[in-house]
């Protein structure tokens, strides 16, 4: 017996919601970053689910693109985070508002 598609979609929505809320309420930069990854993967899961449901390989192709972009984003994002922590070990996201207008 196979799991119905709606369950996958529900799981993806929950993961996305957790990621979004985490991004908004947490202050630790690293955690916020992980939340972003969670949201990206929630979207990936949605794509895969729809690809199976609609029998369309296109959805799975998009997932590869998202993975590549996410990998690039991790490289840049982690580099920024590391350089922030080098200056101030206890920095939170709210301490960094240098671009205030």
């Amino acid at each position, binding site marked *: 017996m196979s799991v119905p598609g709606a369950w996958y979609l529900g799981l993806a929505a929950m993961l996305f919601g957790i990621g979004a809320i985490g991004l*908004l309420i947490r202050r630790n930069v690293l955690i*916020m970053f992980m939340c972003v990854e969670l949201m990206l993967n929630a979207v990936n899961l949605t794509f895969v689910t729809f690809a199976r449901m609609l029998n369309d390989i296109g959805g799975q192709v998009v997932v590869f693109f998202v993975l590549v972009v996410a990998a690039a984003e991790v490289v840049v994002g982690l580099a920024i985070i590391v350089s922030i922590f080098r200056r101030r070990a206890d920095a939170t*996201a*709210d301490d*960094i*508002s240098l*671009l*205030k*207008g």
Partner: protein
Amino acid sequence: MMHAVWLIPALPLTGFLILLATGRRMGDPKAGYVATAMMVGAFVVAVGVFFDLMGLHGEERRFQQDLFSWISVGGLDVHVGFLVDPLSVTMALFVTGVGALIHLYSVGYMHGDERYPTFFVYLNLFAFSMLMLVLSDSFLLTFLGWEGVGACSYFLISFWFERPSAATAGKKAFVTNRVGDFGFMLAMFLIFATFGSLNYVPVLEGAHELTHVTATAIALLLFVGAVGKSAQLPLYVWLPDAMEGPTPVSALIHAATMVTAGVFLMVRVNPILNLAPGALTLIATIGALTAFFAATIACAQNDIKKVLAYSTVSQLGYMFLAVGSGAYVAAIFHMVTHAFFKALLFLGAGSVIHGMHDEQDMKYMGALRKWMPITSGTFIVGWLAIAGVPPFSGFWSKDDILLAAFEKNKALWFIGLLTALMTAYYMSRQVFLVFYGGERWKKPEAAEAHGEDVAHDAHGAHGDFKPHESPPTMAFPLVVLAGLAAVGGILKSPLERWLEPVLAHPHEFASSSSTKLGLIVVTTVGALSGIGLAYSIWLRNRVRAETVEPEVLRHAWYVDALYQKIVEAPGRALANFSAFVVDAKVIDGTVNGVGALVRAGGTRLRTVQSGFVRNYALAVAVGAVAILAYAVARSA
């Protein structure tokens, strides 16, 4: 030799370039001699071309030289080329001849000036432009020279630009000339639209196909150009002010050559003028009125150069009277004799000013013939020539003009006759004041009164000094010009035959020989009575000077004041309006308003940029939700 015609303008151009590059190193007086040598060279070439042309027969006397293509756009193809025919060669001969003499004179006159080489740079550039004007084979190239001489005139009038009056006079000349140039340009547009060409030969040969209206329009527009350049009513006002320039400039540009360009242009297009009798009548009327009007002013001027300036305006009026009467040869004849005697008079005046240490007021001169024998002798020849005393040159040319005017219209002739009388009067007044009478520059009370005269330059002559004769470089041109002014009358009948090929309809004097003789007698009596009148007033003191110099004439009929009211005042008001209302309020206001708007908007919007990542994330989330909600609401 004919093929060397391009050398005539090229030599002064070379002189201009050489002096521009190395003039300062050559200095005073070498730069002057280089410039003079170029003009003499040009004159020699012009003489050679003249003899070549003489070797040909009547109708064949035309040679065109095409140098290179200058402008080629669409249907317009303008070549730089020269048209050698009796008219252009006559002009080239007297421009280079008189020009060379005046260049030589300037070597002495400008000696010691700070910007001596610059003066000759301009002078050579002027000669180049003037020769392009007269020798070119198309309207456009003539226009190039026309503008060139205008620019040089501006440079040279304001040569002593340290004096505000000189700078202003230069600007006035330039601006007034622009009004006329506007007419010239419109005429060229019309010619191109009609003929599809701006070259003289096709235009003038096709002129007989013109309709009456087109011919009149072209003639009048060209005449507007001529009015500006040749200082006729109502655009003459710049010429008297142009006397602020050095005296050789006044002689060369504002007496002998540039101001006659308008007359030359009219004669050049005579086939078109002949088709427009209305335009001819207008030209004759303007000429006669200008001649009369300027002569009245000249009777009451005290500045030695101002008298000559108004006299030039008046004599140019004569030339236009001749053109308007269809007597083109008489116009050119008078132009040539006028170039001789007026250049002579101006150079003589320059010599007087030089010898009197920059004094220009005739009321503080007198008895100079004892001190300056060459200057006074030559000046007297010039005086007799311009006054029309036989057998001097001015008599013959003026007589031709008056005869032509008599046949055209008796009223115009009468104005011309009155003008001739006044010409004799004011020139005699000048000669008597400057060279005869008492030595007024000596008297202490004169010097004192002079000192109080605020309107006058303070650097004039006072007290104990002796007027001195000018150096040989200045005296030599005077003597040569005096010779020409004396015997120039013999050119009369050769010139008539010589110029015949360029005229569409040679002018024939219809009057009987007894009428001619009668007119000659009347003219001569007029001239002599003018001299006699001046003699009794200025040497015998029969009449108080004030009564013959009414205020209105001293102020030149208040024309400058009138122009100030009707042209300058509205112009100034408009400029003020543009500067302080349109520019400051409207244009600056728009620009500053846009800036202020952007700035205010930016100030409000910058608060959105909090710098907190979570705020941005929240905004993205809210935005995404809003878009989704919108999509759901639409599909539902």
